[in-house]
């Protein structure tokens, strides 16, 4: 395949974007090739989001220009003052954070502001919308009923709806920002199939992802940004993974963390017969039992709907209908409420840090200390000095990049925010940490930091239970691996005997997977 300009769909030249107090992009070039998957990688803060927002019409560059190439080779310079304008030129964007209306149904969400009408322009044709929605969803390999309310869909399904929204417009350039962050392995395969189909039709895909294995698998061209500058752009086939990481981060990837084996001690946590009935029949969790030892990292793997998050939430006492015994160091926890369980030494780092883990209107320091305030209290009174000391210690321990703990938590990047949530949990002096997707949506550098934190915890004789949908992560960090499928434990493997194949097979038991990749 030639690299001539005939294959270019769009080009961003010399783009600079300055915000008050910070330069987000500096003289960046970005080429999007038609009918190819153009990958964009970089750590958080490198400028990927800003570049994408400029191309999609959400932001305007301070300097530089955008050029679109028509099929016949003609070039025209374009500028967009809104997403509608960019959409008219055939540019669609699928955001990482969902922008759905949870109280409306799937079809209404897909056709929001693009409603299909009949009898002139006033009456919405719900029937036609439902039909077309069904079509698009089928194309994405999902059998979601278009009249389901979005709030009743699981996160993975919601992400599919988000993608369907853009597909309706049949874009020529499709930007996908971390599209697989909530998808199971199966759904990722389906998505890749769809992406390949779009490639055949000549659509140019811009793919942003932190999952470098995916990038290597489907990417054609890769552009690497670091600190607002373009570092390199080339064909994916011609670059090694370690080189990609090194260019993204500017450090030697060998210094990155990967799992080590630990010595494990006595039994710390025991769960017996955890059962959670599902609304409308069946079980979200069925008779789940397992143990965790001192110094052990237990990895829990499973597909969407397996019940992983619900298992952790039931252990914390959040699910009223859950039944089952939980022991922490021989003490029964299941009769206690969440506050008491935290006091006994069990704490949860939740899946969605912004929605469940942080107080966005408070400072970093107040977020860190919120779950453990009682430690800084004498009489009725919070001792500011004590709180500040412990908070600063935690900031250092977690390597949270922040100028001062008084800064609003809003200002931090995803990776640093995640560290705050973990720090908040650690300040409660737990014995066992439950972590739900602790590395979701954070960059390579921060991920490595989180793994290091987990390993140090194990070394210091804590128990760690972590849920992840990234097989490699589970594989490299866990001392023992538990596989959940449809609410049942379908596999338990020791580090020494586990293979990716065995784990994957166990996660599919009971599913009768019908979708052919």
């Amino acid at each position: 395949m030639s690299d001539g300009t005939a294959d270019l769909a769009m080009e961003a030249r010399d783009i600079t974007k300055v915000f008050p107090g910070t330069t987000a992009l500096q003289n960046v070039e970005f080429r999007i090739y038609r009918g190819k998957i153009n990958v964009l990688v970089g750590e958080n803060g490198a400028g990927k989001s800003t570049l994408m927002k400029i191309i999609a019409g959400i932001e305007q560059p301070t300097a530089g220009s955008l050029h679109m190439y028509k099929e016949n080779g003609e070039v025209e310079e374009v500028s967009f003052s809104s997403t509608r304008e960019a959409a008219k030129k055939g540019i669609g964007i699928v955001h990482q954070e969902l922008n759905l209306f949870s109280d409306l149904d799937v079809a209404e969400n897909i056709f929001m502001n693009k409603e299909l009408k009949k009898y002139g322009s006033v009456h919405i044709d719900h029937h036609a919308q439902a039909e077309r929605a069904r079509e698009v969803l089928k194309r994405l390999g999902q059998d979601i009923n278009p009249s389901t309310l979005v709030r009743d869909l699981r996160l993975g399904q919601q992400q599919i709806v988000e993608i369907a929204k853009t597909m309706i417009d049949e874009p020529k350039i499709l930007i996908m920002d971390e599209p697989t962050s909530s998808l199971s392995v199966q759904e990722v395969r389906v998505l890749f199939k769809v992406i390949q189909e779009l490639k055949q039709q000549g659509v140019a895909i811009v793919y942003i992802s932190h999952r470098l294995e995916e990038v290597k698998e489907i990417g054609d061209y890769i552009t690497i940004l670091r600190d607002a500058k373009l570092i390199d752009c080339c064909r994916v086939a011609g670059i090694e993974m370690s080189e990609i990481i090194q260019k993204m981060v500017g450090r030697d990837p060998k210094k990155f963390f990967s799992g080590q084996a630990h010595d494990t001690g006595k039994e710390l946590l025991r769960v017996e017969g955890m059962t959670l009935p599902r609304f409308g029949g069946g079980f979200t969790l069925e008779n789940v039992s397992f143990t965790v030892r001192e110094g052990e990292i237990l990895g829990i793997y499973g597909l969407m709907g397996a019940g992983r998050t619900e298992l952790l939430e039931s252990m914390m006492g959040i699910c009223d209908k859950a039944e089952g015994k939980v022991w922490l160091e021989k003490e029964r926890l299941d009769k206690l409420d969440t506050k008491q369980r935290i006091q006994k030494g069990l704490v949860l780092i939740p899946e969605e840090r912004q929605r469940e883990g942080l107080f966005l209107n408070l400072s970093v320091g107040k977020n860190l200390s919120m779950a453990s305030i009682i430690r800084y209290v004498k009489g009725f009174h919070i001792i500011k000095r004590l709180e500040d000391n412990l908070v600063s210690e935690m900031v250092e321990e977690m390597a949270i990049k922040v100028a001062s703990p008084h800064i609003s938590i809003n200002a931090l990047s995803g990776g640093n925010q995640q560290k705050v949530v973990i720090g908040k949990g650690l300040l409660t002096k737990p014995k066992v940490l439950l972590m739900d997707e602790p590395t979701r949506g954070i960059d390579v550098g921060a991920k490595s930091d989180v793994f290091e934190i987990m390993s140090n915890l194990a070394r210091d004789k804590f128990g760690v239970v972590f849920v992840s949908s990234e097989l490699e992560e589970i594989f490299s960090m866990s001392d023992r691996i538990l596989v959940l499928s449809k609410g049942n434990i379908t596999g338990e493997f020791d580090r020494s005997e586990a293979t990716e194949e065995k784990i994957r097979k166990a996660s599919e038991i009971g599913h009768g997977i019908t979708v052919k990749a």
Partner: protein
Amino acid sequence: MSTEMKRRTDPKFSVGMLILKLRTLIALFAVLLVFSFIAPNFLSMANIIAMLKHSAIWAIIAIGMTFVIVGGGIDLSVGSIAGLCGMLAGGLIVEGLRLPVFGIVVYFHTPMIILLVLLIGVLLGAVSGLFVTKLGVAPFIATLGMMYMARGLAMLRSGGKTFPNLIGKAELGNTGFPFLGAGTILGIPLLVWLAIILAVITAYVMKKTPSGRHVYAVGGNEDAAVLSGIRVNRVKTATYMFSGFTAALVGLILASQLVASHPATGDTFELTAIAAVVLGGTSLSGGRGTISGSIVGALILGVLNDGLVMVGVSSFWQTTIKGMVVVLAVIIDQYQLKKQNEAALKGQTKSDSLSDAVA
């Protein structure tokens, strides 16, 4: 992180930001200044004390309302609870507690009456809290319902009539009620002292105690609060109970001032309380706000009210102006938040690049 780096990366001190932060106080001074020119005898001792007395009433309910709103809820029933509690106090003084089962009438001592009525205010707040936490009713609806229920009960207590002449009879031992609303200590009305003491205690609780921090957490992000081990239902109910307490206190004070209880007392008080709280910088969505802000807000409303009366402005204009002031306050508040966010981002990005350079 070394201390030198901390100093270098602290957000720059800006006069503009300071003005925005102190805007409520500046607004208060502005209002005082304007009226001191256009209204005769505005800054006389008598007038200042009168304004303090009016503002103190708003301040007390605003304090209770601040807790509820910061905790993510709202309380529309405070005015009605004030009215009901005034009626209950008046009734106990004038008619006593009739116990037909035993064929007697009980007359309580004044302190006892005050205590009982305050307790009832707390209980009514607890009921609202119950509706919100255990029965899942939205705070707006739960307290709206309580508003009507309490108002209805207040009317029922006397069949719509006023309880006049609440001086009490010496032989019944229930004298002394008027002291609450009209008494002075060291020349300053008791009512104002009460407001000051309440303000100091609650400000301390909100800033320095875990309970106070928890209210901010519950209002800021309920899910995260649960996962941080906070007993959300308890916190919420406590805020409604305290709000009920302040409403009862105000009801007693008003009945004492008038030396009569009237069932329509307290009508629309909740709206003024909300206005004071919002003026003071509290966000209606919860998780943000201060007691001192609400006090200044109450002062502004009190001064504005009295000032406009002294200048002879129609009371209809007063209502209009009150509305405009509240909306303006929220607009400025949003603006200040935006600027604050930008400043924080600036400071953060500077620190990011500095620590990268060092790393």
